[in-house]
């Protein structure tokens, strides 16, 4: 009934969809198996993509040929560039999407791909022969063959939903859980664990009083995630901000004795940075209010997502507490928030290409690896898809360095350190974030995807080349063009910058604090005329690289220094168990993870700098 596939992707969320795209764009024949074809690309939680560090990831996924950026751009109802008051490394795109359109767009894009087939059914296990994966077993007892399998199970593996004292199996509100896979993998020798996450209640937007909240409109000129010229919305919807208060906290606290979190029914670890509202008021009892974001779920629906109010308290407690929030006095609830526990596999069981150590050609991506977030899932999916293709053809894995992308940071962290709580990306996890900006993801990564032989990258590469040339041209222009005191002193005076005494080169003015290209452009017609031929993105990158050249260079030097450690290869023959000088934890971790380089070893949790010195001493350095 089925042809033989190169890659079977199990699950069609953000990881699964990108995995299918990654493998298919490399040329593999892909079967995408999902329990429900109506929920392909579903946003299970917040109807938004991007945010600090996450927005950078979406742009990286796009730069590597993934679809998340395009889908987001074409379905957004609001766009904001976060952190504009901070430096360019922190600028982070975030978009609110129409939940329905988002899923629809994803499905249509996948359907349009000639290399992707679909099958709707639950996968109950993987076919393994001689330590190599050969396909999947399905709930109806079928066996579908493939060379590689990518598991992207999200919260579905033995998913257990908690609301107050009630608990029931389920992978998502209204959908059943998936069974069988964990048990089989454990039998094969994998170690599984449990994670927990949660989602807030959804309410009826028609019953909210927005006058009592602060409005949070989108950016006047929306920007985009994709480096391709996607269509952006001509209008946007506003979000709103409101706050909890002591009354709300009091009501919530009254339900603590029925909270699955506090009574110990949930044992699994939830994310510390995305705590439930009950967790916030419990742990930070001195705070008398917490911020809530009131976010629409789409153009046409009245459903509202109450961001910041994630809860697994009993539904009546949630409801009563909601009604004490300013603007929510008459709120009707569509569904309560809930917590969900699900199986994951400690990602230290994976190689740096996301392939399992135990079973060849079996890949994991997304929440199964202990991560959280659509963006984190999407990028793992894409990398797993590409690497599955490469593994089938016995080619070198595609690995991004920590200095090349947040994706590199994420995967390196996961496979070397594992995670104790759902792993979310932060800019502070990246040691080279000045280099890993949202404006240059294409320059960093698109050439790598082209080298891999990824399909459909020609247009993207053209954009990169144009951008690189623009950067040089623009700098040249600023270096040779002078500006007179007459032309600019008025502007400098207005921004509190010292006036010029004689004419200087334009670049010198740009490099001053508080001066930016957009303002200069408005002030100087000749500059405006020159820049007319360049895209806003090219100008932005050129400006950033000129203005922060010193910092960028410093960081690049650090990268070069660090890469020297990355080049010290650790052979397979090292018997870590016999190196008494290592801490016992380091001995165990190094034996288990077998890092490829000293650099990788240095990032394994439990491996201390003195352990690294020992390794260097041992290797005769």
């Amino acid at each position, binding site marked *: 009934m089925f042809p033989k596939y190169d890659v079977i992707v199990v699950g069609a969320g953000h990881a699964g969809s990108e995995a299918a795209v990654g493998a298919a764009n490399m040329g593999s024949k892909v079967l995408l198996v999902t329990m429900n074809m109506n929920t392909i690309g579903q946003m299970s939680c917040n109807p938004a993509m991007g*945010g*600090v*560090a996450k927005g950078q990831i979406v742009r990286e996924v796009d730069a590597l040929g993934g679809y998340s950026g395009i889908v987001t751009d074409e379905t957004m109802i609001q766009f904001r560039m*976060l*952190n504009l*008051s*901070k*430096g*360019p*490394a*922190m600028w982070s795109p975030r978009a609110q999407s129409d939940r329905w359109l988002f899923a629809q767009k994803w499905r249509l894009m996948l359907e349009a791909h000639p290399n992707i087939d679909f099958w709707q059914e639950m996968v109950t296990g993987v076919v393994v022969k001689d330590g190599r994966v050969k396909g999947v077993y399905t709930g109806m007892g079928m066996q579908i063959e493939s060379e590689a399998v990518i598991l992207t199970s999200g919260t579905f593996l033995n998913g257990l939903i908690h609301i107050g004292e009630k608990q029931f199996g389920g992978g998502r509100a209204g959908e059943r859980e998936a069974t069988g896979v964990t048990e089989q993998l454990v039998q094969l020798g994998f170690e599984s664990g449990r994670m927990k996450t949660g989602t807030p209640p959804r309410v009826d937007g028609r019953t909210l009083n927005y006058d009592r909240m602060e409005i949070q409109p989108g950016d006047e000129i929306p920007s985009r995630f994709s480096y391709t010229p996607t269509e952006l919305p001509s209008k946007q919807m506003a979000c709103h901000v409101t*706050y909890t208060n002591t009354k709300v906290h009091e009501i919530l606290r009254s339900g603590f004795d029925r909270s699955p979190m506090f009574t110990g029914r949930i044992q699994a670890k939830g*994310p*510390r*940075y*995305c*705590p439930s509202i009950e967790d*916030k008021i419990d*742990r*930070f009892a001195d*705070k008398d*209010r*917490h*911020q809530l*974001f009131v976010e629409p779920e789409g153009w046409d629906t009245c459903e509202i997502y109450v*961001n*910041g109010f994630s809860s697994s308290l009993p539904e009546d407690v949630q409801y009563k507490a909601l009604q004490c929030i300013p603007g929510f006095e008459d709120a009707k609830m569509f569904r309560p928030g809930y917590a969900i526990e699900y199986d994951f596999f400690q990602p230290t069981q994976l190689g740096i290409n996301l392939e399992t150590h135990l079973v060849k050609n079996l890949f994991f991506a997304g929440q199964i690896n202990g991560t959280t977030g659509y963006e984190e899932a999407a990028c793992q999916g894409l990398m797993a898809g590409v690497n599955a293709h490469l593994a089938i053809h016995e080619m070198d894995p595609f690995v991004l360095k920590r200095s090349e992308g947040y994706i590199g940071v994420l995967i390196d962290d996961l496979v070397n*350190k594992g995670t104790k709580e759902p792993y979310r990306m*932060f*800019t*502070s*996890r990246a*040691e080279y*974030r*000045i280099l890993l900006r949202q404006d240059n993801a294409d320059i960093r990564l698109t050439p790598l995807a082209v080298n891999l032989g990824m399909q459909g990258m020609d247009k993207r590469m053209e954009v990169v080349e144009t951008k690189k040339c623009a950067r040089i041209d623009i700098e040249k222009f600023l270096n040779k063009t002078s500006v007179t005191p007459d032309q600019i002193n008025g502007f400098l005076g207005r921004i509190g910058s010292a006036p010029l005494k004689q004419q200087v080169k334009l670049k010198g003015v740009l490099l001053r*604090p*508080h001066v930016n290209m957009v303002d200069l452009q408005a002030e100087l017609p000749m500059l405006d005329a020159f820049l007319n031929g360049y895209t806003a993105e090219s100008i932005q990158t050129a400006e950033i690289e000129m203005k*922060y050249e010193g*910092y960028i260079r*410093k*960081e690049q030097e*650090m990268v070069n220094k660090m890469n020297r450690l990355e080049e010290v290869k650790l052979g397979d023959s090292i018997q870590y168990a016999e190196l*008494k*000088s290592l*801490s016992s934890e380091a001995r165990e971790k190094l034996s288990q993870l077998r890092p490829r380089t000293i650099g990788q070893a240095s*990032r394994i*949790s439990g491996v*201390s*700098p*003195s352990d690294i*010195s*020992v390794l260097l*001493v*041992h*290797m*005769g*350095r």
Partner: protein
Amino acid sequence: MTQTNLSDTIVALATPTGVGAIGVIRLSGLEAIPIADGVFPSKELSKQNSHTLHVGTIRQPDGHILDEVVISLFKGPRSYTGEDVVEISCHGSNYILQEVIRLLIDHGARLAEPGEFTLRAFLNGRMDLSQAEAVADLIASSSASAHQLAMQQMRGGFSGEIQALRQKLIDFASLIELELDFGEEDVEFANRDDLKDLVGKLRKLMQALLDSFKLGNAIKHGVTTVIAGRPNAGKSTLLNGLLNEERAIVSAIAGTTRDVIEEVINIQGIQFRIVDTAGIREAEDAIEAIGVERTLEKVRQSSILMYVFDVIQTQPEEVQADLERLYQPGMHILVVANKMDLNPYTKYEHFFPSEEKERALQPAADPSTKQKEPVQLSNWVPVSAINKMNIPHLKEKLHEAVINDKVSLDETIVTNARHYQALQKADQSLADVLKGMANSVTSDFIAMDIRQALHHLGEITGEISTDDLLGNIFSNFCIGK
């Protein structure tokens, strides 16, 4: 470092060769106890408790007694190297010690490479890197102060201070990271003035540590002390007086010392590298000109200047002029009035009559570094080098110059060049932080410099990982939508 086989049992003499009533031979490794058992028939060491002493005899294979010894038994991991260690205290005869070591090698031990015991201690987790370095210093230390310093570093005083510094900086960095990663949320922002304050405090602390390096280094390698003065002022005689030997060629002909002569003397536990120099005057030939240039060069590099002059031949104006030529900010001056036997009534006031003249010596630039008046009565040392008159007083003054002038030895002192460099880089990064703040650079760039500072401090002890920052954030701030 070459790859050494860590499964061997190693042996070496643990006390200096040559002298001493007792010589200690140390064995370390898996086979240390069986090997010792093979030469020590008096008791079966493998059945004895750790940390015990055993008296008995070392016998050669033919049964001949080689020596009567005391054996100290340390079973791993509670030993210096973390392995089984046997220390054999023999009588301090070179012959006996060599024979015992040979015997142990015959029984399966290998002669240790230099530093191999410490290497093993480090590799077995018995000490961290900075402690291991301190041990190396301890072994090499040749004076009491250096020994004290090395001991102090081993006990972790230095690591402790750095650790405290780092923790403050991590808190600082966490605040900035919080602002960066969670700026969209309802979080408190780092107060820039507080941050500036904190960086200022940190830099002050680091500056103190950096300053201590000069002294630390001096104690380890000796304080450079230059004897300079006009030809025939008696510089070489003074050096000989200090050394109690005829090291320099002395003659009544001006310009006898054409090259730079260097000697080491130990005054109350501190080493001084005393440099005798050619006299300063308008040189009459090329060779002498080079000598004078070298003198000035040496003076520039020294911590203490002993300016020697002949109380009979030299005019006050000439003394002033010389000092002006020689004085460098930050150096300690001793004005040695020589040939006092020829005019015992010479007084300080004759040569430094008024306040104004002293002031003239004060370098005009750099008012921020509060230099003491370079020449005061307390720096005036009348001697007669040829009669060794008042030389003990001069030695006292030299010792004082190091001890009183700078840091007390009880404080943390940085002696290791690697540490010094790391501190310097950390300080540079913090300076960049301040510079960035002054230029209203956004906090992502400032965070970069803070991380750099943390990284450099991490080079001294432990390492900062971003997990520390996030952990700090999560435990102290309510974040997350």
